[in-house]
């Protein structure tokens, strides 16, 4: 075995220029894949985290059917009991309750139909980034009642500023007219236009009074310690709400069910990435196939001699495969190291793609993006390169078995 490796190693350096070019081709593909996959994974993480923090939380407990219909009548009638279940689940980092109702909101000049969201000011701050998004005025405090937070675009559309009054007119849970007057206490901006022009937030207690909720809420929102815990939490919470006698009325939905578009868009991006990467690797494979093929073109005589002195064809194949594998591994190692360095650099400094900040904002992404190097992102691409180049190298390695000693020695 060791003699084979030694021979292979020497064979590689018989033509250093060629071997280095081949190794560079492999390293190039590996660097690119390490960087691109880290970039993709990094942006997915950012996207999911910001969407979770702005919109849904990691998971929610809702009345069955509420997620589709958003009807005010489909409520979680005992949020405290659900809250206890969440408190008993160790992986849950924070949770809060929300209630929503579509209502007409009027300023002195304008009227718009928006979502009025009742939030628990203290708990909400632990789950969502709403508090950090306040651009003017201040966030709701615990004992506020007739105060409201308004999205920046909605405030502009309504032509209101801090301290101005808004008349809210909607329909309560029991069908009664729900009407109240609130003062603008804070104006927030998420950067997502759709979000910033479609809702106002008022204290949950006030919401429950105005909309005759009788203590009920629409969503119990939970944030896990991290994304990985979500399936575990979901299972625990689903079991927990069965125990408190839910009888199929409540459901536990995770962020993927709450935002199916997000996860599908991520999958789409991944799939299309894979198509590009696969094609790239195949082009590289054909690019280096010639180097491997040369082994037989150039060394036919040599192989004839080796066969004549008793080397088995199997050993020749092995020798060739060792040669190509050493080159591939060299390329991959260089690729992983260089790729990690490049990725690491950008992971610290971030990347700004000019002219995209507006677009990124709408997906809840910051202008400066950071790739996320991980074991997975550093290994998948190079592993694929390894497999495909190995398959490429099989062809010449198997071909060599067909050589006949006499003809081979007579060849060039």
């Amino acid at each position, binding site marked *: 075995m060791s003699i084979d490796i030694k021979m292979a190693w020497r064979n590689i350096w018989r033509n250093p220029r*060629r071997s280095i070019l*081949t190794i560079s081709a492999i390293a190039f593909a590996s660097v690119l894949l390490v960087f691109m996959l880290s970039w993709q994974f990094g942006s997915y993480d950012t996207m999911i985290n910001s969407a979770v923090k702005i919109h849904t939380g990691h998971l929610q407990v809702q009345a069955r059917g509420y997620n589709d219909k958003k009807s005010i009548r489909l409520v979680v009638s005992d949020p405290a009991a659900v809250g206890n279940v969440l408190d008993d689940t160790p992986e849950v980092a924070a949770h809060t309750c929300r209630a929503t109702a579509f209502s007409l909101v009027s300023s002195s000049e304008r009227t718009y*139909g928006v979502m009025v969201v009742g939030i628990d000011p203290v708990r909400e701050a632990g789950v969502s980034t709403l508090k950090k998004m306040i651009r003017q005025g201040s966030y709701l405090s615990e004992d506020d009642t007739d105060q409201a937070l308004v999205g920046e675009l909605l405030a502009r559309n309504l032509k209101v500023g801090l301290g101005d009054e808004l008349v809210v007119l909607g329909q309560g849970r029991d069908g009664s007219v729900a009407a109240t007057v609130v003062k603008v206490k804070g104006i927030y901006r998420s950067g997502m236009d759709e979000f910033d022009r479609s809702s106002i937030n008022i204290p949950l207690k006030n919401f429950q009074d105005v909309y005759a909720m009788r203590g009920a809420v629409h969503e119990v929102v939970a944030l896990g310690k991290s994304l990985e815990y979500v399936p575990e939490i979901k299972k625990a919470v689903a079991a927990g709400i069965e125990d408190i006698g839910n009888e199929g009325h409540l459901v536990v939905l995770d962020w993927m069910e709450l935002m199916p578009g997000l996860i599908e868009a991520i*999958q789409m991006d991944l799939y299309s990435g894979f198509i590009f990467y696969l094609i790239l690797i195949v082009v590289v494979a*054909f690019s280096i196939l010639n180097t491997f093929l040369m082994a037989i073109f150039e060394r036919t005589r040599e192989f004839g001699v080796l066969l004549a002195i008793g080397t088995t064809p199997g050993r020749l194949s092995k020798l060739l495969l060792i040669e190509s594998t050493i080159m591939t591994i060299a390329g991959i190692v260089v690729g992983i190291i260089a790729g990690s360095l490049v990725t690491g650099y950008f992971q610290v400094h971030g990347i700004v793609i000019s002219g995209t900040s507006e677009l990124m904002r709408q997906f809840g992404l910051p202008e400066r993006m950071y790739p996320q190097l991980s074991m997975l992102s550093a290994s998948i691409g190079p592993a694929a390169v390894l497999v495909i180049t190995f398959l490429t190298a099989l062809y010449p390695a198997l071909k060599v078995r067909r050589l006949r000693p006499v003809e081979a020695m007579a060849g060039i």
Partner: protein
Amino acid sequence: MHFQLAWRNIWRNPKRTVVIMTAIIIGVWSMIFLGALMRGISDGMVRNGIATLTGHIQVHHKGYRNDPVVENSMIDPEVVKTAMERVLPAGAQWASRVRVNAVANNARHTAGVTFVGIDPAREARISFIGKAVTEGRYLRDDDKYGIVAGKALVDKFETKLGRKIIMMSQDTDREIASRAFRIVGIFEAEMQSTEKQFIFVTKTAAQHMLKLENGISEISIILPDQEGVKQVADNLRAAVPSADYEVQTWRELLPLITAYLAIYDGFMYIWFIVVFIAMGFGIVNTTLMAVFERIREFGLFKALGMKPRWIIKEVLAESFFILLIGTAIGNVLSFLSVFALSGNGIDLSALASGLEFAGMSRIIYPAIYSHDVIVANLVVFILGLLVSVYPAVKAARFTPVEALTHT
């Protein structure tokens, strides 16, 4: 003579030539074909954006874009109409609309929507709604109380054809105007968000409800030829009083799509370069091999008096043929693949909510842009020849004596 020599040389080792050509073919194919797919996606976005009530050019009252309310209406659209008659090229279509935010409700549900009053015949020629009604019928000029709503909205409202929807919006007196309409048609659109957002009545009904008289919110124009959009918009801008009106092209009206287009452009050229680098290693290596194999031959040429310059030309001619055949076949294959898919397109409906999230159409029709094809071929060709200079120079430097003693 170089060419003849080069042509024969590349076929001395056909297997090697075929392998490197295959790399070039796959590379060129992937550049053009994946480029066409990306263009298909962005074309779909643009087409969808334009059809979803944007048009190529829009005219608004100044301030409507920032504050789309009934006060910012064009009270006297005749001014714009006369300007359009003068400026628009033959074949251009336009329609005027009332378009305000409103609240739709029925007994069970309430939602915020965009309430659009249209001129049924004109509108059908410029936006998606003319062909989108799948249940019931499209609006007629005399529909005083008819309304066309999107399928997603109708489902959400748990209602159906013939039922009532009450619309509420602020009128010109800043009072809440409300009026009951009956669903006469249900439309389906590319995006669910479109189905939920827009609700259509006749322009006269909307004007009546909002006390607008002849006022309108916007004029949308479709030109026969997309190329001239900017020019026409400039002409129109000059022809209407700039203190009262705003003229904008779809690129300004759909900034997100414009940003997407720029990203796609950038991404495509990066892809071209990346694929080329992957092929480049192979091209250099193969040409180097071909050269080193023939050291004796080149030595002999030189001993016979061939100038180094000719040797460079000869080696480059070999690369030229390999690149030529490779790109030609790559082009043909990519055209064939695009052609095969252009009929039915690539149906991605299975990922509908992901597409909706990303703003993409459900079916992608690959689109070949001659500009991309030219760039792809030029990149491969010019850079391909450029990297072949290195082995060619190597070949030209062999000294006759050294080379002839080489075995």
